[in-house]
Each structure stands twice: as structure tokens, then as C-alpha cells.
């Protein structure tokens, strides 16, 4: 039982760090990181939804009763995700099809909703917008990195342009299993770097 508690404590400690925290909100987005453009696209969509929701809730939080705030945030996420979905299907329909149901599923991103509900709702307008934009862009960067690795080594292409034409690609990386494994190693690297950074500080 103490090991499980330790696990939870570790999880809690890393959630507090901005470096690893946002990585954990990406679970659903992992499915689409098989190609670079998909990863970037979903990252940008998440950013848009996050920023709009944070700005809105920051404006509304004084007028919304405490009990209704959670419901409001969930509905806001759904509304802005629908908007993003419609915009994307109008401007880049092929990209929208590639993202599939994972674009609407942004409305179910637990940690993002929790963050907006607890933190952004108490922030004034400018900081809320800025923080959420930074978080979203960090996530996009991480997703872009992940999808670059997955596409490069999984199918030998980068955004569709063949790079390793003759070498056999690691097909596992294009599968969900490869995504899990790569993501796990990525977070381990981030946690290791954070721990090393903490050790250096006296």
C-alpha cells in the first residue's frame, strides 16, 4: 500500500511541475500523433479551446454561482470544441478527417478542465489568457516532438515527405502500443531531467 501511496505522491509532485504536468493532459491526443501535421493540428486546437475557455470563465466566474461552475466549464469546453471542429472542417477538411473523433474528445480532457475550473476561473483576464496560451503551446510543442519521432521512425517520413526511403521503419511506433511506449519514455526523460535539476540545487 505504501508503494501505491508513493506512486500517488510522485504523481502529485510531478503534476505540480509545469514541465511534466502538461504532458499528462495529452492522453487522448496521443492517438493522432502518428503524423507530424496531425500532432501539431490537435495541439493547436487544444490551445484554442483552452484559451477561449479560460478567457470566458475568467470573465464569468464572478457572475456564476459556485455550484454551477463545474457544469459551466464542461459546457464551455464542449462549445469551443464544436467551434474548433466546425472551423477546421471548413478550412482544412482533410485534416479534420485525419483527426477523427479525437478533436471532439478535447471536451473530455480531465486535467485541462480541472485546471480551468480551479485556477483560470480565479485569475483575472490577462493572466488567464496568457497562462492558458503558454500551457497550450507547450503541449503543442510536446505533441509535435512526439509525432515527429513517431512519424520519422515509424514510417520514415516527415509530414509526408519521405526521409528514410531505403531503411525499414519501426512499424510499432505507428501503432497505439508504440505511442504508449514512446510517451512513457519521454515522460521518464522529463522526470529524470527535473530530478537532476533539483539535485543540482543545494
Amino acid at each position, binding site marked *: 500500500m505504501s*508503494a*501505491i501511496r*508513493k*506512486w*500517488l505522491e*510522485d*504523481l502529485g509532485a*510531478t503534476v505540480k511541475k509545469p514541465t*511534466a504536468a502538461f504532458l*499528462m493532459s495529452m*492522453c*487522448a491526443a*496521443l*492517438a493522432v500523433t502518428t503524423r507530424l501535421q496531425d500532432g501539431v493540428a490537435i495541439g493547436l486546437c487544444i490551445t484554442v479551446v483552452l484559451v477561449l475557455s479560460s478567457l470566458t470563465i475568467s470573465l464569468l466566474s464572478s457572475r456564476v454561482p459556485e455550484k454551477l461552475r463545474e*457544469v459551466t466549464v*464542461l*459546457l464551455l469546453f*464542449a*462549445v469551443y*470544441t*464544436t467551434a474548433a*471542429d*466546425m472551423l477546421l472542417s471548413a478550412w482544412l477538411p482533410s485534416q479534420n478527417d485525419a483527426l477523427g*473523433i*479525437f478533436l*471532439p*474528445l478535447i*471536451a*473530455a*480532457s*480531465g*486535467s485541462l*478542465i*480541472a485546471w480551468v475550473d480551479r485556477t483560470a476561473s480565479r485569475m483575472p483576464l490577462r493572466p488567464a489568457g496568457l497562462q492558458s496560451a503558454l500551457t497550450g503551446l507547450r503541449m503543442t510543442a510536446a505533441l509535435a516532438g512526439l509525432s515527429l519521432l513517431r512519424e520519422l521512425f515509424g514510417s520514415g517520413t516527415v509530414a509526408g515527405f519521405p526521409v528514410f526511403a531505403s531503411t525499414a521503419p519501426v512499424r*510499432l511506433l505507428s*501503432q*497505439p*502500443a*508504440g*505511442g*504508449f*511506449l514512446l*510517451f*512513457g*519514455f519521454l*515522460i*521518464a*526523460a522529463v*522526470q*529524470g531531467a527535473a*530530478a537532476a535539476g533539483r539535485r543540482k540545487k543545494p
Partner: protein
Amino acid sequence: MSVRTVVTLALTALFLENFVFTRFLGVRAVIDASRSLRLVFMNGVVMIVLVGAAAPLVRLLDEYLLMPRGLEYLRLLVSVGVLMILSMGGEELMRRRLPGFYDALHAAQPMVMTNTAILGAVLLANQENLSAPQAALFGIFGALGFLLAALLFIGVRERIDMADCPGSFRGFPIALITLGLLSMAFMGFTGLRLW
């Protein structure tokens, strides 16, 4: 709907296209629920009931209310709304009339709306234009697939916790790698032809 369709639906949702391992849904919920077996079953039961009720409801609303009037863009909002109404209404009902159930299940309530498998099941059923009974079955078996994934994961995690894990891998990373390995096991089901 013949027995064949039902069995095909069941096997597909459980193994070939498992929500967690193949479709990448509900990953966070599996990891969060692996704190205790009780939480895993709570999540599983809540998911089965919720998706089993919400998926056909959303399908019916979609077919008879949204599509005839060209309101497909409301699909996500209607899905989220129906799920929220069912989960909040269900929680209230349990609190007032079935305190035993409430006691047992309400710890899983916060995880409901942030579980991508629940919303994903409803959206997928919608996308594939299943009939209402088919959507219910798809949702129920998909939720059972989620429960299967969560049970497998918690079983492996209990062993991992006793093992000596390198510092930077402890917690989330080793959980994801475990899921990756389990997912690789489920990859063995691809290419299976049912009849």
C-alpha cells in the same frame, strides 16, 4: 439482430478494437482507477450503465431531432449534455433513493465526465450510425472492454509497485510503458476474421 451480430459486436469491442488498447480512449481513467480494485469496478460499473443508457439516447436524438433539421453540428454538445444529465441525475437519484449504491459508486463520479472512453463511446456509436439497440450493445461491450483493460492494468501494476523501479520511471512513465506492452499483446488480435 442475430446472435451472430451480437457476438461479432461483443468480440470486436472487447478484443479487436478495445477502447483502451486499440482505440486509445480512457487511458487516463485506467491509470487513475488503478489505485484500488474497488475504484476499477466502480468505474467499470458506472461506465457500463452510463454508456449503455446514453449511446442509444444520443442516437435517437441524432436521428429524429438533429439530422432532419440539419443540426449535426450540435452532436458533441448533445452528447456531452446527455451524459452530464444522466450522470448528475443518476447521482442525485442514488443519493436520495439508493444510498447503498451511492455510497459504493459516488467516488467514481468525478471521473465520469473526464473519461474519454465514455464520451468516445457515445460519439463513435453516433459516427457509425448504429441503430439504438446496436448502439446500446456497442456501448456496453466497449465499457466491458474498458473494464477488462483496467483489470489487466491494475493486476500488472500491483506487481510493478513491489519491484525496484528506476527513479525517473516511477509513476506515470512505467504505467504508460505497461499499457504499451499490454497494447502490444492486444495487437495479436488484429487480422482476426470473425466468420
